[in-house]
């Protein structure tokens, strides 16, 4: 009795399926890398907008300081005259401390405060010059992490 030896043959179908699989993998990787590169570029463009907004606000603050210094020199130690001269500039004065803010858009603003000393030149010292986020920080405590 002779046994018939089974014939194993890899046809064109197997290699086709493998090739299709490889091509689909490559396409998926291509799409993912494109999406990632696009997201990175959008993030950089957003960062550029924020940087420009910051320097716009900082330049505005310096212009404001120019007017404040001119008013301080003109009022010769009289804060009432200073308040009258700087009305409309959006200044908040508390004693010898003067604060003001510049909007940066995107829920951020630049806050500046100076302390006035009429006996010194220049007549003020910078107390702070800071970017503040106005967006309320909501803490997500739904997960018990500890």
């Amino acid at each position, binding site marked *: 009795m002779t046994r018939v030896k089974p014939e194993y043959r890899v*046809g*064109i*179908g197997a290699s*086709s399926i493998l*090739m*299709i699989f490889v*091509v*689909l993998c*490559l*396409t998926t990787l*291509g*799409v993912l*890398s*494109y999406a*990632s*590169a*696009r997201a*990175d*570029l959008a993030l*950089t*463009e957003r*960062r*550029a907008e924020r*940087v*420009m907004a910051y*320097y*716009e606000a*900082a*330049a*505005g603050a*310096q*212009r404001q*300081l*120019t007017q404040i*210094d*001119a008013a301080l*020199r003109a009022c010769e130690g009289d804060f009432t005259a200073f308040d009258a001269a700087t009305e409309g500039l959006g200044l908040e004065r508390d004693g010898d401390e003067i604060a003001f803010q510049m909007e940066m858009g995107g829920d951020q603003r630049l806050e500046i405060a100076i302390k006035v000393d009429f006996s010194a*030149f*220049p*007549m003020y010292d910078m107390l702070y010059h800071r970017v503040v986020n106005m967006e309320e920080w909501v803490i997500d405590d739904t997960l018990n992490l500890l």
Partner: protein
Amino acid sequence: MNRGSKSGAMLVELIIVLLFFSVSTAITLQLFAAAHDKSEQNRVGAAVLTQSEDVAERFYASGLSASAFFAGEGWVNAGGGLFIHETPEAEFAAECFAEVVGAGGAVGTLERATLIAKAGDRVICTLPLARYMPKEVAP
């Protein structure tokens, strides 16, 4: 099925697979090229933005007038308060002004500059810079 029709079917299958492969490869290559292009734009944009911020912060910290600062940084003076600096990837231009505050500079000077950074035809950022210098601290 005879031998002829079997090999014919195989040939058709092979052609379809090759066609699919070539179309997909073309699309995939385009995708990779576009991804590389965007990634390169992002890299250059981020680097140029960082350089611009660096220049701006050094200007604020310098205590010099705008034109003296950019001249001291080795930027080329193109005349009319315009300073230019070129790197292999980007071109920077700074237009400097000085606003005298008060009659005869009795109060101080507002040193201003507009810093424009470009990579190729693309404007990466335009930074308005200003620093008020009371007359007591003006150089």
